[in-house]
């Protein structure tokens, strides 16, 4: 078993009001010096069997077609544990 992590973030040019709301709350909580916050999604996929190149390619397709909407979002795929230390970033 290995865990593959897909991180999905809004593209830099897309307005992120959720991140802005978090950022605006920071000074009130005593956290100064953080000028920008952007909020994204993290998917942790527990994969049965080996995470080989073929499995990573399938997960990349899954991320591109479903987990992320590439019109508005970028994503990265990385293996967190398991037998392949490969990292595939888009």
């Amino acid at each position, binding site marked *: 078993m290995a865990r593959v992590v897909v991180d999905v973030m809004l593209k830099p040019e*897309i*307005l992120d*009001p*959720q991140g802005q709301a978090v950022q605006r709350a920071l000074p009130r909580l005593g956290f100064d010096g953080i000028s920008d916050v952007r909020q994204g999604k993290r998917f942790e996929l527990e994969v049965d069997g080996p995470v080989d190149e073929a499995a990573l390619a399938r997960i990349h397709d899954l991320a591109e077609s*479903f*987990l992320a*909407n590439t*019109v*508005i979002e970028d994503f990265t795929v990385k293996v967190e544990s398991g037998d392949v230390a490969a990292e595939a970033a888009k």
Partner: protein
Amino acid sequence: MTARIGVVTFPGSLDDRDTQRAIRLAGGEPVALWHKDKDLHQVDAVVLCGGFSYGDYLRAGAIARFSPVMEPLIEQAKAGLPVLGICNGFQILTEAHLLPGAMLGNDHLHFICRDQKLRVENAETAWTGDYTAGQEIHIPLKNMDGRYVADRYTLDKLEAEGRVAFRYVDLNPNGSLNDIAGITNEAGNVVGLMPHPEHAVEPLIGTGRTDGLPFFTSILKKLVTA
């Protein structure tokens, strides 16, 4: 002679009954379609209605886009089948790439429920023939994820080709780029918008006006005279 217009019910759809009623009021025959249907039962057009399909847990419309009924729908829409997406239906159409761009959360992060003034910018689509270009109408708007976004190239192309079908007037309720409330595909058979015309078809309810009814009479006229 009338036309048969399918209305898809996904788990979490809310406005399927209202949409069927609007079609009936306009003189059409509504046909209930189920998200698991593998064919469209020979309908002449389809409406994807509002709601929160599959809970919208990933992104609005993202899971519905992969439901069985969408396979024949996407294929036939590309071949010219008239499809109207209202609210969640619009979100599903962008997720399915039948319409360009994407829908994101309202810029103020609040749910909206209000009467909204719109301008009909394109009265030549399959769903807008009974309006006149430039006509201003009042239609209820109720959503969480109504912010239309697209890259600059897509926006310029939509504007240049007259494919912004509806624009918010007086105020932009959700941060949509270019005040876009609805768009059409190149052929004019696939139209999506955030406001709900099916809630503005009888004087007794909603805005007290029937500004939404022409969506449904437009498509019937087009189908019956075609």
